């Protein structure tokens, strides 16, 4: 009786976990198979190398979208990666406890603001500022999107980077200080190198966030799909922005398939990034995976087990 319950419980929980795998498979399968139909309408060459995306002429070249996404992400990362690392170092090593708490609250709040709110802010603050300060066009474009994305990517990057730094053992810090390092020397020469995989993960996942962000970007990027953007301040588009703008009103099957193919590309890029994270962290997963709160034999973990698992500091 008890045993049957136990087995039943385990199988129920396993099925729940299995749904995660099935969903991932379904995601790839459905989007992939639907998206690839685009090649029955246009040739792969004109899809991948076409320099214009125009539903009126039924040209679906992905380059304007791809280029917009890459440029936006790149500009975002250049600003946001150093910012996030600086902020996480501040939070872990410099800020006194009350300030650290305020910072953490701020980061969590940033994380939970809906995309439309970021978009709204971009629309009412960033775009007019760019337009009036730089006097170029309407202010909508890659730069506006990047400014918004810098703040949108902060929570992801800061929280992971902070985790990585904070999980370094206190003994490393004490070791560095005890030889006479200044705080900055300790941070720069010991902590940052030791946390490198975590910091890299933070940047990669921030990048994923920037590539995938839809609404906030859609609201400030200008949504010009017909050409490859020539500068950072004239209208452009990104892959997600194009999907959400055009898919609801895409009537021709070719157009619809082309947009779904773009979604498939996004999916593939994301999966590559995740694989990159795995590589960066040496096969371990991003967060929490193997982190058990207390080792098996509390405190008295047999030395042999420690040895077996390859002594970690």
């Amino acid at each position, binding site marked *: 009786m008890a045993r049957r319950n136990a087995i039943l419980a385990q199988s129920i*929980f396993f099925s729940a976990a299995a749904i*995660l795998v099935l969903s991932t498979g379904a995601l790839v399968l459905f989007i992939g198979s639907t998206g690839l139909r685009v090649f029955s309408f246009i040739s792969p060459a004109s899809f991948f190398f076409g320099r214009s995306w125009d539903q009126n002429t039924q040209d679906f070249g992905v380059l304007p979208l791809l280029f917009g996404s890459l440029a936006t992400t790149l500009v975002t990362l250049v600003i946001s990666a150093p910012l996030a690392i600086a902020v996480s170092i501040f*939070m872990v090593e410099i800020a006194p406890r009350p300030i650290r708490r305020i910072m953490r609250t*701020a980061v969590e709040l940033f994380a939970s603001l809906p995309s439309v709110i970021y978009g*709204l802010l971009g629309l009412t603050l960033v775009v007019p500022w760019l337009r009036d300060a730089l006097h170029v066009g309407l202010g909508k474009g890659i730069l506006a999107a990047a400014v918004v994305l810098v703040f949108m990517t902060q929570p992801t990057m800061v929280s992971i980077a902070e985790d990585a730094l904070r999980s370094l053992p206190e003994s490393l810090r004490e070791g560095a200080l005890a030889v006479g390092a200044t705080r900055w*020397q300790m941070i720069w020469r010991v902590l940052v190198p030791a946390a490198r995989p975590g910091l890299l993960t933070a940047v990669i996942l921030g990048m994923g966030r920037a*590539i995938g962000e839809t609404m906030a970007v859609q609201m400030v990027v200008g949504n010009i799909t017909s050409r490859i953007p020539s500068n950072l301040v004239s209208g452009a588009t990104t892959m997600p922005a194009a999907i959400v703008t055009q898919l609801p009103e895409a009537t021709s099957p070719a157009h619809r398939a082309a947009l779904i193919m773009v979604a498939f590309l996004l999916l593939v890029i994301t999966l590559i990034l995740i694989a990159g994270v795995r590589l960066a962290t040496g096969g371990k997963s991003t967060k929490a995976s193997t982190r058990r709160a207390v080792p098996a034999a509390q405190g008295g973990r047999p030395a042999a087990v420690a040895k077996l698992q390859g002594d970690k500091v």
Partner: protein
Amino acid sequence: MSADVRDLVASREEAGAVMNMGARRRAKFNDTVATVVMSAASLLLVVVLFGVIFLLLRAGLPALSWSFLTTAGSFVNTGGGIGPQIFVSMYILVLSLLFTTPLGVGAAIYMAEYAKPGRLTTLIRFSTEALASVPSVVFGVFGAIVFLTTFHLGFSVLSGALTLTLLNLPLMVRLAEDSMRTVPESYREASLALGGTRWETIRKAVVPSAIPGIVTAMVLTGGRIIGETAPLILTTGTTISPNATYSLNPLQTGETLAVHVWVLKIVGVPGLQDAQKVANGAAAVLLLIVLLVNIGAAYFTGRLQKRLSGTVGAPRAGGRKKD
């Protein structure tokens, strides 16, 4: 060996152990500069955030009133509101959490308590991470293909809720699993040592201790559902049928609060009175919900920590170090 030690001291000076004042001063200077730079970066972030909140509330709060929250937008008079959108948001929230919570907690229990290291576990873990980082618009496209077209649910509240379920599942699993992993291993050992089976141990010792964490996960997931936009545009639609406002029919199209803000700002609703005021008010409401969600999450996280604290003997007056 003693000779080695004598070497050590004789070479004290060559070793540069004696202060090199130039280098010292430079190290000090760098330390100060770095501290200033990192503090400034952090200050910037906090100022931007609180500035943003201030601006949003300043623009939106004047619009808020009871009638604004309960009536529909009006094409005839000024003073219309966002009642139907709030209703749809809440409906999708409830529906989606109803699917996400049992699935997510179940999967989390499996991962935290049963999963053994191996290929299958790695696969589940990888899937969870992959799902967690797939852009939300891709889920929207998936929902549009599967729920709308394949299952013929059309643009509907149900399609949206199902899409969001998939979207939020990884977050729910991770948070719930985390909260179960914070439950000290010593509880499990204690329970097993008293003759508990694994299932009893999970049910009686692990899950009860993790409940505040699971509630936090629900609250945070709920916050995301309220704020989500892109997948809903592709699965639930951007309109509410005027003769089916406040309808519980899950196959109705719907427009959530967040989508409404976007529609008002970007697409425009011809003829709607007060469109900008309504948009600002709706944004302020969204923001207030998000603030509430954060406070709620912090509260339950605090509960979790409080419940699990003090396991390591009577803490001596705050000393976090041994001895």
